[in-house]
């Protein structure tokens, strides 16, 4: 006995049309789910950023990185739109960083020194908030949030993976209620965790006392190193350019400021999430050699360009700051190339 083609699988124009319709509906559904997941991840990132910038919080956390474990405390207060923050190392050197509306002060008791940097007068609350828009997708893969638990609390795990070696990614465990990052990992392009920050204790009080935002040390006899001159915004580039910035990094602002009595050009590059500052000084000192420097997970690279010292600093891999610093050129020089 010979088996014929099943009725269901036989071709007919009606069935072909139905299949095409079914296919289109299916595609539309898949696209809708995918777009919803993208929006969901972006919404969680926005919520996190807003929480970090606008909430009061007081927490102790462990920072693991470079084979070291450090205990730290962060106190962040927002009162009448004014942000004040204190970050304290509870181990070893006991250093502190205090950010007030007008200044950032770094207390270095191990050096009996305080370094003071004036703050810009941008939006104090959300001035540095990155825009988690479609542009980010060119440089990062933002995966749909997963459910997780951290410190016994419901959380959402949002993964932001870099598309290349010029930037870091994040794994963020965000509290379901507050969107605060209870735990975060900074990862390289291969997914290796470079730094891990885990909150051991986090409170979101309605008010925070002034005492918690003052340095815990007496600064009597300390050296104060500060720059007084306010920064001046100048036209983008204005004499200097970065000819070949790494993929995705764009110049966002150029300022002139004074460091140590000398005029310094400060150019900021961003890929939408990570940023790199390029400082150009006309003054050269004999005791400084060009080269890379690591500051925690951030990197700096210093080089010489036409009798100027160029230093790039950013929360990016070493090759990114190097690429930016070594791409700096005088505008006229670059144009004549």
């Amino acid at each position: 006995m010979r088996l014929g083609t099943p009725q269901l699988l036989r071709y007919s124009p009606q069935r072909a049309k139905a299949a095409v319709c079914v296919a289109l509906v299916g595609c539309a559904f898949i696209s809708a789910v995918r777009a919803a997941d993208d929006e969901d991840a972006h919404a969680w990132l926005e919520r996190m950023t807003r929480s970090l910038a606008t909430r009061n919080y007081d927490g102790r956390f462990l920072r693991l990185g470079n084979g070291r474990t450090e205990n730290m405390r962060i106190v962040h207060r927002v009162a009448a739109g004014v942000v004040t923050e204190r970050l304290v190392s509870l181990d070893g050197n006991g250093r502190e960083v205090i950010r007030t509306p007008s200044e950032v002060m770094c207390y270095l008791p191990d050096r009996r020194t305080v370094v003071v940097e004036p703050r810009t007068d941008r939006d104090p609350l959300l001035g540095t908030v990155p825009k988690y828009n479609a542009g980010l997708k060119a440089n990062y893969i933002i995966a749909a949030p997963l459910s997780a638990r951290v410190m016994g609390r419901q959380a959402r795990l949002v993964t932001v993976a870099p598309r290349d070696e010029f930037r870091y990614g994040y794994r963020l465990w965000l509290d379901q209620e507050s969107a605060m990052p209870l735990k975060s990992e900074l990862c390289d392009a291969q997914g290796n965790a470079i730094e891990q920050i885990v909150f051991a204790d986090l409170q979101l009080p309605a008010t925070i006392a002034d005492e918690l935002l003052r340095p815990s040390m007496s600064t009597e006899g300390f050296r104060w190193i500060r720059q007084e001159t306010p920064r001046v915004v100048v036209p983008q580039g204005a004499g200097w350019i970065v000819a070949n910035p790494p993929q995705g990094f764009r110049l966002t602002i150029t300022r002139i400021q004074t460091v140590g009595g000398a005029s310094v050009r400060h150019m900021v590059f961003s890929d939408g999430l990570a940023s790199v500052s390029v400082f150009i000084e006309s003054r050269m000192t004999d005791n400084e050699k060009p080269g890379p420097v690591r500051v925690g997970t951030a990197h700096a690279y210093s080089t010489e360009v036409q009798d100027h010292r160029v230093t790039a600093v950013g929360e990016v891999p070493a090759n990114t700051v190097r690429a930016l610093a070594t791409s700096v050129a005088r505008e006229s020089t670059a144009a004549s190339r």
Partner: protein
Amino acid sequence: MTDPIQEQLSAFHDGELATAEAELLLKRLQRDPQLRGTIGRYALIGEALRATEAGGPSRNFAEQISQAIEQEAIPKRIWRPVASWLKPVAGGAIAAGVAAIALVSLRIAPLDKPAAVAAVEADVPAPAAEVAAARVAENTDPAPRYTVPMNNKSRNAPPIQIINDARLANFVMAHSEYSSPLGQRNVLTGLLVEDPTAEQGDAQPPTAEPPKK
């Protein structure tokens, strides 16, 4: 607990344990809750020593540290509820989606990847897709695990060269104003915990002025 283990814990907490030894210690931490409690106490001691007048360490700080270190397994992807207006068509659409995949030859991820991630991968270059897949493989591992971030010194990290430290601190602080909140925390914590350079004197003239109030 044996003395060598205590020494290892102490060295680990001080950041002086070699990477290979640290990895072995961390594997042991996964299995040994008593050991996890001990490392929490080391952290507590450190915190207590540095506690400010604002208040000592919280009573359950060591326990919280221990809990924090024990990274919990990440559950599988949980889909969000389908919106009510979609429910009547959702069932048919899912079936339709299956047919659609066959008909229009969409790229299909291996079966062990969550569909959402497969969708994300569909329009990214291959290397990035591999990165994402690796992430997913990590994230769906049901076994409890804890990994300490690698020691950059052992992974071809750049050697430390000399830039005047006060000037670099100025640069880092100036840069932090333009970082995202996460990036800002990264750069500022780096400034606190590590001495990026050898001291070479100051490029800037120190003053005796206190901060502006």
